[in-house]
């Protein structure tokens, strides 16, 4: 199992659900090692913990030849930045932009870090836990705008 090998080589901890935890300072080192055995980037996502003011960023990679999946996890503070995985996996481009858009995590060395699904002038990051579901900037808040009906 390549996963076990990587776990031992990089001395990563494992959570009870099988996620390998690494420190964000070792990012490049870890990615370089992973790229060798897991060339397929499945997804990147984040989870917000408002009490701890922290994010879990989760990476999932696949090995195609011997079907296997590996999950990596790193914890960062809200104001912290994370290096971009674009250098290793081109697909990280859009995935990181999505996280930047919805969580507000910034990625260093990303080629084009803009909002991806929301308009450029949107305020706030909706998937953060302290963001209410129906909040929108005034310009885009159509709930308060009047209903238009034709006079017949």
């Amino acid at each position, binding site marked *: 199992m390549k996963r076990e090998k990587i776990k031992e080589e990089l001395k990563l901890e494992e959570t009870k659900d099988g996620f390998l935890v690494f420190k964000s300072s070792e990012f490049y080192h870890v990615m370089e090692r992973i790229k060798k055995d897991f060339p397929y980037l499945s997804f990147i*996502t984040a989870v917000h913990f408002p009490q701890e003011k922290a994010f879990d960023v989760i990476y999932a990679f696949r090995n195609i030849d011997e079907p296997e999946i590996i999950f990596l996890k790193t914890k960062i503070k809200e104001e912290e930045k994370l290096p971009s995985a674009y250098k290793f*996996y081109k697909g990280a481009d859009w995935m990181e932009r999505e996280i930047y858009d919805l969580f507000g995590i910034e990625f260093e060395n990303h080629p084009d870090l803009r909002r991806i*699904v929301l308009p450029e002038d949107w305020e706030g990051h909706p998937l953060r836990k302290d963001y209410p579901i129906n909040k929108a900037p005034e310009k885009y808040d159509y709930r308060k705008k009047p209903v238009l009906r034709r006079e017949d």
Partner: protein
Amino acid sequence: MEEKVKISEPEEEIILNMGPQHPSTHGVLRIILKLSGEKIVSAKPDIGYLHRGVEKLGETVTYVQFLPMLDRNDYLSATTNELGLVLAVEKLANIPVPERAQYIRVLFSELSRLASHLVWLGTFCLDLGGALGGGTSVFLFCFREREKILDIFEKMTGSRMHPHLMQYGGVRYDVYPGMDKDVKEILDLMEERINEYEEMLVNNPVFIDRTKGVGILPKEVAMEYGCSGPVLRGSGVKYDLRKAHPYSSYDKFDFEIPVGENGDVFDRFKVRMEEMRQSVRIVRQALEGLPEGPITSQMPVKVKVAVRTPPGEVYTAIESPRGELGYYICSDGKPNAYRLKIRAPSFSNLSVLPYLLKDHLVADIVAILGSLDPVFGDVDR
């Protein structure tokens, strides 16, 4: 006619804004193109015109409430959407699934794969031929067949497109009497028609000319971008989650994974056509081997907090018609997810678009975009 045409480079570049309202963007995609004459210098897709905040919604409503909303995500194959979440929650909460339910799930997943690929074939040809052109005919033929599949869905669940068939621990409806006859009729028809369409298109020199050697996606790039499904297989990677990590008793079925060679538009077309044939095969097996027994391990639930998961994290992925559709759930023991991430196949498949479009002609945009088969409910979520 084989060699590439050299078009002399004009000095000025024009910027063309394609979409979001455009007949062939398969929904609401906007592409900002930088053109030099007819050649594309760079392409920047702009997505998010159908961003409905499904992930945020998944955190606020319970699992039971959330399931029907998922139908609207990848709206061409609603059943596979549900299947993904149902499997994830079942894995986290350890809910057993009777074998009959598993077979019904497979049966309807494959039927919706057929329906989805039919829509893809129709719209793909529509793009190649123009809405007033020869492509329209294939488009209408495909929709004619799709109606027949939707009739089964309607008879079974009451809804054509969004059946809400799955439930945690099984399925909500048993097969109705006489369904096997209905389905077999469609399968016989489909086998005939798939061959007919493929012959019609592959023997057309213009079609070959427009698709062969266009939009080549190498294996390594496809993997880096996280492409999955027919796009990955078209590039020659033999990888199918149904075989690699079998779920819902897919390991009991006998089918093959079609693979392409060059990774161009034509290969992706071929792979999808072959996949339709394999789907027909799987549906036949599922009908024949449908075991007796209960269809759900839990009573049909009306209470919205009926399903709870223990705290923990889980990720399951299934092979939807578009590729790897995964659900990552981070739970804190409540009847709703703390964080619900949908790993959308169309999102990753579409992200390869700027790479593919570069140095192609304007006319190739529609062919390449059509071959990726994005669904914007899935891309934007």
